[in-house]
């Protein structure tokens, strides 16, 4: 895929989930070196629910960088069922890791691939990696919360320079090999590359109920959806967020995409949570 998916702006009904479902493992007793603690807080998502206009994002840990091809190679070495020639088609499509030379070989471009974010991995594969390493993918709320930050501010969504960086990236064609992790910008929380490198999987990518073109008040089509009704986007300036929501809505769990990777998140232990 040479260019980012053309996404048309949808007049969409979306609903936001702020809770993380921790399904596995124990939280670490200290913050791992390759993660940072994000303090969390109140967050006004781009799609507001009028009953709950702000959502609470609990403190959590987030990878400083996206997962690299080198990282992922280590994972599939340890878990052969996730190697390219062995993975079940239910869990990853036929382009899974197609940019590698072989199951356990990055190929002649290995020097460029090793430090670059891994792409062409499905949601299932990303979750399997996360479970192996830290436990889970970030939720939509966590990702958007961390992603609202620019270099010097935790919430730069109103700032033209923040939006310009992202929209400029959306306008570029996808390179054959992404730049190495750590090559875009380090945000206020110390997290790199949330924008400017690859799109990223989230745990609840299938939580958006997008109805498409809607000329009414935004209520859900009751034949297609069962639910409490809709949200409308209130901030039309945040085109970047529209793009991300639209992109995620277009994904299926087994899809692999040339510019879609991921990073890991983790819950905190109560002691770490309460530290300032």
């Amino acid at each position: 895929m040479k260019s980012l998916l053309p996404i048309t702006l949808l007049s969409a009904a979306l609903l936001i989930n702020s809770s993380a479902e921790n399904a596995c493992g124990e939280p670490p007793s200290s913050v791992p070196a390759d993660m940072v603690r994000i303090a969390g807080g109140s967050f006004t998502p781009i799609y507001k629910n009028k009953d709950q206009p702000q959502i609470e994002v609990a403190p959590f840990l987030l990878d400083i960088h996206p997962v690299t091809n080198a990282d992922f190679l280590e994972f599939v070495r340890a878990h052969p069922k996730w190697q390219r020639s062995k993975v079940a088609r239910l869990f990853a499509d036929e382009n899974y890791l197609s940019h590698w030379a072989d199951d356990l070989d990055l190929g002649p471009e290995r020097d460029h691939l090793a430090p670059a974010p891994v792409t062409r991995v499905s949601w299932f594969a990303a979750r399997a990696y996360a479970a192996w390493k830290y436990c889970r993918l970030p939720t939509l709320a966590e990702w958007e919360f961390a992603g609202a930050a620019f270099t010097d501010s935790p919430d730069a969504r109103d700032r033209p320079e923040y939006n310009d960086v992202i929209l400029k990236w959306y306008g570029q064609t996808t390179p054959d090999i992404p730049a190495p992790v750590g090559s875009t910008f380090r945000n206020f929380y110390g997290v790199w590359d949330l924008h400017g490198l690859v799109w990223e999987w989230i745990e609840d990518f299938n939580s958006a109920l997008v109805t498409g073109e809607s000329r009414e008040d935004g209520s859900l089509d009751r034949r297609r959806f069962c639910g409490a009704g809709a949200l409308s986007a209130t901030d039309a300036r945040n085109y970047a967020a529209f793009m991300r929501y639209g992109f995620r809505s277009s994904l299926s769990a087994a899809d692999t995409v040339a510019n879609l990777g991921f990073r890991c998140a983790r819950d905190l232990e109560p002691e770490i949570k309460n530290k300032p």
Partner: protein
Amino acid sequence: MKINIPLLPVLPVLSALLLLASCGKKTPDAEAEVTATETASPAPCCPEHGPAAPVNPAAPLPDTSLYQLEGEWQDHRGNTYPLKNLRGQVRIVTMGFTHCEYVCPRLVMDLKRFRENLIHQGRTDVGYVFISFDPDRDSPQVMADFAKKLAADGPDWTYLRGDANQVREIAAVLGINYQKQPNGSFSHSNVFAAVDREGRIVHQVNTIQDDAAPFAEKLPK
């Protein structure tokens, strides 16, 4: 094997009555109609306790089978088993939750109409599966009560409860989007998926149905 019977006239649509009556409560008329429907249909095939054993449990699952998903599920009869225990029978699957104020009873009613239609065409070998989004509230007993109230609790019905992680995975495989709301309910897309004996999704419809036979010839043997 299909038996050539002309299609009987479509049964009265009960869903409107049941929706008006709200989840779990039935008007006397609706209850009488539902009972009449149940006694009119031939007895379904399947054993009382737990799903039928897979045809060939030793054979590997095809690599697009959703029965490859791991995790233990509880059904409304209190049995616990992995999804692959559903192997060996064609199934129509949907997802909902019993505390639903909107459309979920209609999902079960649609399954009932599909079932009636299939039975009248000689297909008594199909199973009907309702997977819950809501492990916190949909215990086996709650699901059993829900099934009974909707008269959708015969041997060919299965209601399943898994943890939040399992729910996220099965929904992802079935292409169902959903979102837990602050009040504990779930907003979700309405999907019916036909799954073959080996767990492969063979056809899917993405709205509640007026058609009693949306799977028509698409249902595998």
